[in-house]
């Protein structure tokens, strides 16, 4: 993927010398590619995630997940999630090989039966563990999964942002479009608005507390998703980020699901 990107970037920059006029679609795509290239080379990372689900009455429910991600050159990333809370799903784990526009490969491990089950990956729009995050919000964000359109430059909190509209190019998305605020300095995603299938504003995601890891990669401490249609919200807190931990393909094998804990 890196080589391809480099080539694309080279071509794009050569092109911009020849023809200075860039459409909004081309600019949107270029920024998405730059953002992807900016974060490339993370190799692998692990992190702990705490989700706090809040309903309209303010009642809270907690989910706790350990995650591992492996960068794959020329394809989507591989990721592992181990569920720790709620207690009845403790030990349940999922493994995903994402493939951009192609359907992902996905396996689920059910500890009570000690059964590894291959599952269909069609359910992209459904809620992740009853939260306001859909599966597609948390999946690997490959450039080719969307088409893009640059909207404008705008200040966003402490940063100066590009505002970019993107349209899912994969099947079964729950969205018509998303509008993202991406900072110009380090391509941090500050805010995303999600529009449902009827093109009505459904949710807003706000990410904050960005820290830099391994001298390069920016990750947020907190991601808050607010559902405007139901009044429910989910806050995702990230802890213990670690990069280049030495994970290998073997750690992302369906057999490995059985020995995560």
């Amino acid at each position, binding site marked *: 993927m890196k080589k391809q990107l480099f080539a694309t970037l080279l071509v794009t920059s050569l092109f911009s010398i020849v023809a200075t006029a860039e459409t909004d679609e081309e600019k949107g795509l270029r920024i998405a590619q730059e953002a992807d290239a900016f974060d490339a080379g993370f190799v692998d990372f692990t992190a702990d995630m705490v989700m706090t*689900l809040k*309903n309209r009455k303010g009642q809270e*429910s*907690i989910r706790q997940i350990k995650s591992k991600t492996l960068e794959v050159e020329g394809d989507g990333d591989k990721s592992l999630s181990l569920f720790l*809370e*709620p*207690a*009845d*799903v*403790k030990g349940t784990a999922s493994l995903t090989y994402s493939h951009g526009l192609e*359907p992902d*490969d996905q396996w689920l491990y059910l500890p009570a*039966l*000690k*059964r*590894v*089950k*291959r*599952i*269909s*990956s*069609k*359910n992209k*729009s*459904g*809620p992740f*563990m*009853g939260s306001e995050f859909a599966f597609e919000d948390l999946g690997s964000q490959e450039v080719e999964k969307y088409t893009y359109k640059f909207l404008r430059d705008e200040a966003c909190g402490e940063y100066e942002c590009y505002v970019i509209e993107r349209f899912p190019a994969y*099947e*079964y998305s*729950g969205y018509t479009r998303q509008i993202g605020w991406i900072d110009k300095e380090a391509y941090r995603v500050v805010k995303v608005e999600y529009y449902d*299938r009827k093109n009505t504003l459904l949710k807003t995601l706000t990410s904050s507390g960005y820290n830099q890891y391994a001298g390069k990669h920016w990750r947020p401490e907190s991601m808050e998703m607010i559902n405007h249609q139901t009044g429910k919200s989910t806050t995702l807190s990230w802890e213990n980020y670690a990069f280049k931990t030495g994970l290998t393909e*073997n750690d992302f*094998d*369906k*057999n490995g699901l059985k*020995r*995560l*804990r």
Partner: protein
Amino acid sequence: METPDNAFGVSGMTIMGYKWILRTALLILCLTASTLSRAEFSGNIGIEGRYFIEDPLFAEQSEGFTGSISIQPEFRHQWNNGDNGITFIPFARVDSEDDERTHADIRELYFLDVNGDWEWRIGINKIFWGVLEFQHLVDIVNQTDTVENIDGEDKLGQPMLHLGLNKDFGLVEFFVLPYFRERTFAGEEGRLRSGLVVDTDNVTYQSSDEENHIDYALRWSHYFGNFDIGISWFDGTSREPIFQLSEDQSSLVPFYQQIEQTGLDLQYTGEEWLWKLEAIHRDGLNENFWAAGAGFEYTFVGINESDADLGVLMEYQYDQRDKNQAALQNDLFFGTRLAMNDVQSTELLAGFGYDLDDQSRSFRLETSRRFGDSVKVNLEAQYFSQVDSENVLFDLRQDSHLQLEIVWYF
């Protein structure tokens, strides 16, 4: 969820009194003595009530309501970045009516070592093979704990040495199984049993080594694109007993023969469709047969613009044996699975089984929902609507019941 692969039968192994198990247990407990204090502790405690709608068919059986409690603590410790680990999961149930259902077991007690592509486990463990939902044909390593639930998904811990090699060609596993676990069966007072009680104190074996016969198993599993495949081979004591009348003709005596069994499990995973196949060939003392099950699951994602998913399942089971030997010799199953995908993980699974030879019918419903952070409530209903006099389920025809279970996870 599935119907019983053999709802009759009994085997007495309850409390672990066996030397092999004790020795392994001691060895592993000694190994962990220094690390156990750092072990992660979790588990669950359950309270279960069953209500049998009809009067019992047999005189000694309990009627109406039966209650029981169960406990399953779980200790786990990992070190070397998860390359080494110890797991200890004992289990016990106390039942208000059935002495045979009051039982304890070590579900898991093993040591794990991972070394690159190699991994091995020694101790007591549970292994699952297969892809189907209504019956688990190829799944043979662990004995079924029938008294727990007639769905056949509860298993007894199996002592084993388990070696695995994970390469580009897939996962190859080798099992040495040095001790045999007898199947559990309901006692005199218990419901969901055959007319004649299975005498688990008088078990007979083909092998003169009896329960100490050493069994072996081998399995290769892999995936190619949308296909997941497993091929397995087993040589040893059959997990499924054959019943003989006792001398005084007052009970059934389980006889465990030596078998060789080859199995295949295959699943195709599409975007909405799952296609599944399991097949076995078994060669035993007086039997040589094949059996297979095949089916699909189709999922409607986000029905009616909601978060809920609805799955539709159908599976067909064939067994070359007669219907008095195999429960599912020519049976069709229909099922539906509803997942609300809500905060409480509300789920419902309904299944209908139909015997194409004798038109026997049974219906099963399973629902579950989380309350708060750590309590799960499971409701099950099993209804035998029509059972032919020659069907294996005939003695269960008045055992339709409702089961409510409240489980606290810690």
